[in-house]
């Protein structure tokens, strides 16, 4: 029973914060709301017995990405931004989104997915570490390369206006 | 070149300076020359030229002070530049004053900022304290007085201190 309540609360937090992040008038509020959405997802990960992923989500998403976003927003937004001229598209977009959500949800609910899970002991950090260094070590190296490349790219972009 | 007679024997450097200054001829009038202090007068049209001469030929490389004095009896304001020297041989003890008298009604003077960049703030101060306009100064804005100052410049003799209006 408790699990369901927590799930509902976290899901509500995630969804509402996600909507607010897109719809808040000030982008700064949107960015902060996005951080709450990330936090909700992290809570959902804990509910899914993936604590390590949840903590990683917090450290990376909130400690780095949300802060970076917020910083960019504060740097970029001078006054209240002039909203885009795409207002007519909005109802259309809402329609698409709702249709997508409804259709996929219906499909998912009619399919026979399992509703039970086994509490397993091989979901620990050690297992993740074994996978990362063993089976997916090549992916890990590629990932390191991607991260390095992204840092180089970001630095290049930041240096662009200095010249 | 009419010089007041120095009372004591001048040291060597001062003598050399006086001699060098006399080469400018009528443009420069020697006010006094005593040990360590020499004062000369110049007309306002010649100030820039004389100061250039002082800088280039006499090796006075900076301006230590700019001051102005109001002489209401003569209706003149005397602007005095005090030049000092660091690199000149034996000149560090000497202060060379270049004075220029301008009429109070038309208190204008060419700025020496191109010759001696160190006069920038001194000239600004003199300008606001005495109402002298330094032509060619890039930034003659208010420096020390409050922003809402709307009296005559305070260093003029016509300006009486508010606490002393009823006479001394």
């Amino acid at each position, binding site marked *: 029973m408790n699990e369901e309540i927590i799930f509902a609360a976290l899901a509500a937090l995630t969804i509402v914060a996600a909507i607010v992040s897109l719809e808040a008038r000030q982008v700064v509020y949107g960015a902060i709301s996005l951080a709450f959405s990330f936090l909700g997802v992290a809570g959902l990960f804990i509910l899914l017995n993936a604590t390590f992923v949840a903590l990683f989500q917090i450290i990376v998403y909130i400690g780095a990405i949300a802060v970076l976003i917020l910083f960019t927003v504060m740097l970029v937004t001078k006054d209240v931004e002039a909203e885009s001229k795409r207002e007519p598209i909005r109802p259309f977009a809402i329609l698409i989104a709702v249709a997508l959500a409804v259709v996929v949800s219906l499909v998912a609910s009619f399919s026979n997915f399992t509703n039970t899970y086994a509490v397993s002991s091989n979901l620990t950090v050690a297992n993740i570490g074994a996978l990362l260094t063993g089976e997916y070590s090549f992916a890990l190296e590629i990932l390191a390369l991607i991260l390095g490349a992204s840092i180089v790219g970001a630095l290049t972009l930041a240096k662009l*206006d200095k*010249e | 070149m009419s010089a007041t007679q120095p009372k004591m024997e001048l040291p060597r450097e001062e003598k050399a300076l006086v001699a060098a200054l006399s080469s400018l001829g009528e443009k420069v009038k020697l006010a006094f020359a005593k040990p*360590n*202090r020499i*004062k000369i007068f110049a007309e306002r049209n010649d100030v820039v030229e004389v100061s250039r001469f002082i800088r280039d030929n006499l090796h006075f*490389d*900076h*301006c*230590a*002070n700019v*001051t102005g*004095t*109001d002489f209401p009896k003569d209706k003149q304001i005397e602007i*005095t530049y*005090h030049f*000092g020297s*660091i*690199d000149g041989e034996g000149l*560090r*003890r000497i*202060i060379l*004053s270049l004075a220029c008298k301008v009429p109070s009604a038309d208190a204008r003077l060419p700025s020496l900022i191109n010759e*001696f*960049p*160190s006069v*920038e*703030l*001194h000239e600004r*101060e003199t300008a606001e304290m005495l109402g002298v306009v330094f032509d060619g100064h890039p930034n003659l804005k*208010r*420096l*020390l*007085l*409050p922003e809402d100052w709307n009296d005559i410049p*305070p*260093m003029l003799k016509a*300006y009486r*201190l508010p606490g*002393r209006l009823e006479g*001394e």
Partner: protein
Amino acid sequence: MPVGATGISTQQVEEDKLVVSIGPQHPGAGHFRFTITVEGDMIVDVLPDPGYVHRGAEKQTEYRNYTQSIPLLERSSLTDVTNIIGPYSLAAEELMGIEIPPRAQYLRMIMSENQRIISHLYWLGIQAIFLGHSTMFMWPLGDRDLLIDLGEMIGGARITYSYWIPGGVRNDIPGNFKERALKTYDYFEKRLVDYERIFFENPLFLKRTQGVGVLKREEAIRFGVVGPVLRASDVKSDTRLDEPYCLYKDVNFEVPVYKECDTWARCMVHLFEMRQSIRIIRQILEKIPSGSVRVKLSPQQRTRPGEAYARVEASRGAMAFHIISDGGTKPYRTKISVPSFRNLIVLKKLLIGSHVADMPAIYWSLDYWPVEADR
């Protein structure tokens, strides 16, 4: 929209800048205001705005006779009272045509040098707190009080002694002065070693000051800076050497010169000068002659008409008075040439292109004391 060669319009670059006003209520400015324009972490423009302490002392002297001006002029440079009265007294004596006795000369030198240490210690404390070093703020300000005690023994006040006056000094030193002074200076020299350990040799201090705010020799001369700033820019110039007043010819001392021309050099000059001042006072205490200390002057002492320009080496540099007299009991015009005002001109030059974090260090390394500069 004007577009520069790099494809970025100049107008847009303007908008990335942040204009910050420092002062007058700011821990890093004091009674002074300057507006800096910041781009990233770099200062691109500086707009000094002095005048918050402009009190018009020069005009006021025209209403006071030569003795009465002394308490007034002292307040123009409260950290350095003896040395601001020095050139005034010298100029007034030149106009009055009097000679003062040698004991008075030596007493003047004692006061002057003691005051120099006091002023440097105040400078040191503020420089340290500007760099974030609270201990080095407390130590000099504590030890400074001991030196102030010495001044108090002679001058009768903590700071405003009104000790040098035209015609000599006001009073002789008390009998136990020498013993107390030597004790204090012995203690103080030991403290200076501690100061070096904790501050002047601290690697963080070196990192913060070395290569920061470089003022080249040619520029220093051209802009007419004086005092420790000039000496830190590799110029061996000191009024005590160049144009010895009092009896500075009779004492041995060295003048520090540093080739680095940066903030570090300006800091080291101060440290060096404190040691030299102690050395001078020790010599004077050994050789001071007995005799009278004051030439009796009438309160309404008249002067010769004419003008006098006298200067001494104050703790911040050459302090000069230009007095024009019309023969009366009061000066016709007094102009004070203060070192702070002369050094202000390089503030802009040094700050542009430096980090925001270096701003307080550079600012205070010029030893810019707004009260003195504004007069």
